[in-house]
């Protein structure tokens, strides 16, 4: 095998193989109980990979977005434990790119929402914090 290609010096790393997903898995609740955004995120390991389910704030009850595949990421190219994920939802009238990472026991989820319905709403970025509950 030839020399490794890299885009920065961090990538001159010794390979570890597959990433262990467990540090990300579980049910994560928003630290802000009054959020009008994402109330709960559930990350689960399935046979086909990692699956994300989002429950958003609704006027009377949580709004389930359904399942979507999540890609997981380690802290660096030689790390073996997952600490971040990215996922994507397309609702037709809008799409949402989610990126989450764990820091000091909190899951920080950044949302990049893009509207496609000509409603005049701006595409926007937001960020929320989540704690994990026991399974």
């Amino acid at each position: 095998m030839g020399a490794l290609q890299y885009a920065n010096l961090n990538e001159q790393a010794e390979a570890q193989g597959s990433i262990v997903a467990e540090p990300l898995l579980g049910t994560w609740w928003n630290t802000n109980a009054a959020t009008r955004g994402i109330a709960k995120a559930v990350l689960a390991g399935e046979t086909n990979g990692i699956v994300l389910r989002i429950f958003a704030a609704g006027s009377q009850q949580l709004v389930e977005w359904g399942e979507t595949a999540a890609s997981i990421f380690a802290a660096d190219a030689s790390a073996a434990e997952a600490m971040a994920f990215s996922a994507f939802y397309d609702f037709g009238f809008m799409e949402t790119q989610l990126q989450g990472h764990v820091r000091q026991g909190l899951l920080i989820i950044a949302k990049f929402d893009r509207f496609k319905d000509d409603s005049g709403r701006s595409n926007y970025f937001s960020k929320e914090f989540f704690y994990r509950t026991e399974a």
Partner: protein
Amino acid sequence: MSGYGCRRAGCQISNASNRDGDPEVPNEVTWFWGAIDIWAPGQSCAFEGRTSRPTTDQGLQMPRTSASARALWRGGDYSVCAGGVGQKGGQIMESVKCVKAEDRVEISDITQNGYALRLDSLPGTWLNTDRGTRGIVKVVTAVNGSGLTVRTFGAGDPDLIDWGVVAADYIYANSLLSREAAGFTARYHFDFAEIHLQANWNQGLLVLASFTSFKDGSNRSDYFSRDFLRRN
């Protein structure tokens, strides 16, 4: 049919067609969340494999079991109602769709001055606040029409590694009513890896998240990094 009412909250109709008078073509309504009420006197209404018969005085309460759902029925007059959004005869009334409460706004709250965002906060040369970083050292962003270009430099030895210029995929504000750009996403496609950049501008800093996925069979772990860059 006389009148209609809104009894269901938490649901947004995205599409409806009124085929009244043409019994061969089904009426259709699609909605994104919550439940809806449908009044369609005497007509059978199929919903995700089940058939129910709404009545004139009660309406059919249609639950939602997935991210979106669709109901079909044939013939007759009808009325559909959901989440404060009323619809009759296929005309959507004051509706913006959303999947979380924070995205629900009144139409009048939306500035009708075009959808383009002001880009003043994003262009420039941004340097990593960590001088010793072995990751992303510098990002140069520039306005290109209504878009943004991104040029990224990674740490190298002895020189920086120029990733080249890409167009930002999308530009974002920091709220749905704001017209001020505060973030962007962009992607780099290298032979050995894909790198997805997600940036937001916060308190004078550009916070840059990068997701690197290797595709060269090296078994290196896909990884996430987050850097803080200040304007030069």
